[in-house]
């Protein structure tokens, strides 16, 4: 047993050391097919309306974005580089942003890309017509107009200067579509069809099985991609994904494995496995449906939050799940995040769990819900949904609440949250790409299209508006605390659980890919190569 532990420790150290010096001194090799596994299916292929890794991992390499996070420095919250633009600049008042579009870009169907395509894309994202879902529309609420003064210049004018604008543009979901496709086929065509300017050309999608792409020879980042192609293999079961890497049927899984899986892989494969780890801009939430009784009563919602012992849960669950950090509404290591002192003042984060649960029981009694029972809608994905679901049910049992679970596949889960809204309480996640707290917390606004709790809260809208317009970090921080207190404490609109922790063990021959604080970032794959 001791020997095995030592072996794992030695393997981890070696692997992490290897990662630290990743490929900087190595020159990329060309060729090969990257096989990777994806633990979820593709609800649709339209990045503008989706928010799941199940779509972004297999589909992102077909598309470009206007700007993107620097692939060489994906952990940075401020390092953005051009993708389809050659330069971008902002006016002194921060209200006008000009993007010069490259003139050497072609769509996979051979049509050249111009500023008109980028404008058409952003018109869909920012001003979608009624009935067309743009999941990140709220992120662009500051945009006043989008114009193209000439064929290769795009100008976005803002109603007010906002520090969240550029990070929002860099989001990996903002696939650039062809104006011709949007005009000819309509705004829903991209849900099932692909025509991008990304590093890879779509070859085929066998639903539930795999997505295949091949190198786009006309890719605008010259010399890239290094790979001949890739195959994104759908494998919802974690054991299958793990064995796929172990048996070298796949080289990597970009979302993340639990600690146990990492240890097993290192133990079995030693230095053939490299591990990259880091904090993850993703947290799992409990979303009470405010339109379903008794969850319209904030006392009930607060009780559910007060019952959860996050501090103890963090220590235990981090051994078996991809969650770790107890945090507030902001990515834990960010300057805008709550300190532990500030956090422990919010109901639900108190360190005295007995006091917390006594208060929870009192609130339930007061609300006439001492024998509360409900069904928890969950996503049938092992990590961390299943684990957190079981844990939460156990936590709620401790205040006398009886919960049954309904874990369904991603499609019906999304459908229930987004369209049917037929759940009582659901597990949802706030997984963002770029760490940009003011944008990231916009999910908690009642007006956000990806907020499924069905509430309206004007004071929160107003706080968010103020943060978005403020250039002063101290002021942003102060308002963020009020926002957090109202969201998690006073109103308990949403019940937070734990922040995720990303662990990516992969075959050591996969080079050029760097872990980011999000499993959505750095997935264009144009910099990935195989050292075989």
């Amino acid at each position, binding site marked *: 047993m001791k020997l095995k532990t030592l072996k794992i420790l030695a393997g981890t150290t070696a692997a992490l050391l290897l990662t630290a010096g990743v490929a900087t001194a190595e020159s990329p090799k060309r060729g090969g097919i990257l096989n990777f596994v994806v633990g979820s299916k593709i609800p649709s292929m339209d990045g503008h309306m989706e928010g799941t890794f199940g779509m972004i991992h297999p589909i992102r390499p077909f598309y470009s974005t206007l700007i993107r996070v620097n692939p060489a420095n994906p952990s940075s919250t401020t390092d953005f580089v051009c993708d389809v633009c050659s330069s971008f600049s902002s006016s002194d008042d921060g209200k006008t942003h000009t993007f010069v579009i490259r003139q050497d870009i072609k769509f996979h169907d051979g049509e050249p890309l111009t500023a008109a395509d980028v404008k058409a894309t952003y018109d869909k994202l920012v001003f979608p017509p009624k009935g067309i879902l743009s999941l990140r529309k709220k992120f662009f609420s500051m945009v006043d107009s989008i114009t193209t003064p000439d064929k290769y210049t795009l100008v976005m004018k803002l109603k007010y200067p906002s520090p969240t604008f550029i990070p929002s543009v860099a989001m990996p979901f903002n696939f650039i579509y062809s104006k011709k496709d949007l005009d000819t086929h309509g705004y829903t065509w991209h849900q099932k069809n692909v025509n991008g300017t990304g590093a890879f050309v779509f070859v085929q999608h066998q639903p539930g099985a795999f997505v295949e792409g091949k190198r786009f020879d006309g890719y605008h980042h010259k010399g890239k991609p290094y790979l001949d192609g890739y195959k994104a293999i759908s494998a919802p*079961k*974690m*054991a299958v994904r*793990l064995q796929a890497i172990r048996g070298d049927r796949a080289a990597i899984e970009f979302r993340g494995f*639990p600690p*146990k*899986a990492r240890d*097993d892989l290192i133990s079995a494969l030693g230095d053939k496995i490299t591990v990259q780890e880091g904090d993850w801009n993703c947290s799992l939430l409990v979303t009470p449906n405010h339109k379903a009784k008794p969850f319209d009563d904030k006392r009930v919602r607060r009780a559910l939050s007060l019952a959860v012992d996050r501090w*103890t849960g963090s*220590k*235990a669950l981090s*051994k*078996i799940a991809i969650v770790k950090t107890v945090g507030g509404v902001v990515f834990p290591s960010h300057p805008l995040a709550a300190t532990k002192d500030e956090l422990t003042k919010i109901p639900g984060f108190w360190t005295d769990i007995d006091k917390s649960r006594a208060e929870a029981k009192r609130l339930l009694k007061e609300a006439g819900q001492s024998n509360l029972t409900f069904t928890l809608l969950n996503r*049938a994905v*092992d990590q961390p949904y*299943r*684990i957190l*679901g*079981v*844990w939460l*049910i*156990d936590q709620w*049992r401790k205040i006398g609440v009886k919960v*049954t*679970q*309904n*874990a*369904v596949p991603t499609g019906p889960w999304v459908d229930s949250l987004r369209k049917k809204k037929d759940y009582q309480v659901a597990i949802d996640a706030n997984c963002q790409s770029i760490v940009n707290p003011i944008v990231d917390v916009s999910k908690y606004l009642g007006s956000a299209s990806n907020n499924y709790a069905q509430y309206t809260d004007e004071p929160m809208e107003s706080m968010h508006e103020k943060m978005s317009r403020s250039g002063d970090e101290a002021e942003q921080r102060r308002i963020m605390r009020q926002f957090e207190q109202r969201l998690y404490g006073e109103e308990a609109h949403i019940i937070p659980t734990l922040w995720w922790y990303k662990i990516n063990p992969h075959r050591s021959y996969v080079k050029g890919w760097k872990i980011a604080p999000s499993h959505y970032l750095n997935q264009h794959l144009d910099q990935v190569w195989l050292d075989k």
Partner: protein
Amino acid sequence: MISAAVFADQIAMYNPEVNDFAAMLQAPSLDHIFGTDEFGRDIYSRIVHGARTAMLVGFTAAICGSTLGLLVGVTSAYFGGWVDITVQRVIDVLIAFPSIILALAIVIILGRGVGPVIVAITIPLIPNCARVVRSSALAIREIPYVDAARAMGFGHARIVLRHISPNIMAPYLIMLTTFLGQAILAEASLSYLGLGVQEPTPAWGLMLKSGAEEYAESAPWAVIFPGVAISLAVFGFNLFGDAMRDVLDPKLRDR
């Protein structure tokens, strides 16, 4: 198994649904004779309580499936003609689907949980029982006492329920006991596929799934014990079915 299901609360050493993070993934010991799972839940207690789920689903599905099959089979044989032809063609269609595929389709339509799982397992059992029962009923239909009952003016329902059905109890009971094992296995299969009962309810298939996913190598007890429970239950009910046949089949009785 029946004792375990009935006296689960007395036999189990721990609450099967309560997490105990101080005892995560512990190997079998005096405190936890079958070890613990990743949530620190006692596997022995979960297996004992899992017998309840297995029995509830197994018995309900087997009894409902074989009883409905009995009624369908006897009715089909008794009326004959177009009723028989129609019923048999429907049965042909249902039998054409592998039971587990049919059950999967039904669960997807009805949703998850104990109720839908019982329905999903029951429906594929009906045609199997109906077909066997019909062949026995066809023979009994021709026996003079059925004609006598008809001549006395008894209604169809009375003849079917009181005069034919009791005389095909032997094949019915044999089918019933055979179905018990099948239903338990089907419940475990559906749970393993994530379509049966839901966590944290203790169910053998679900336990097998959770353990096999991540801990088959490092904590094999999380997989072995639920697997053994399923095997023993199915084996036991199959033996019971064989014994029933031996007792009820006159040809085998004296051997």
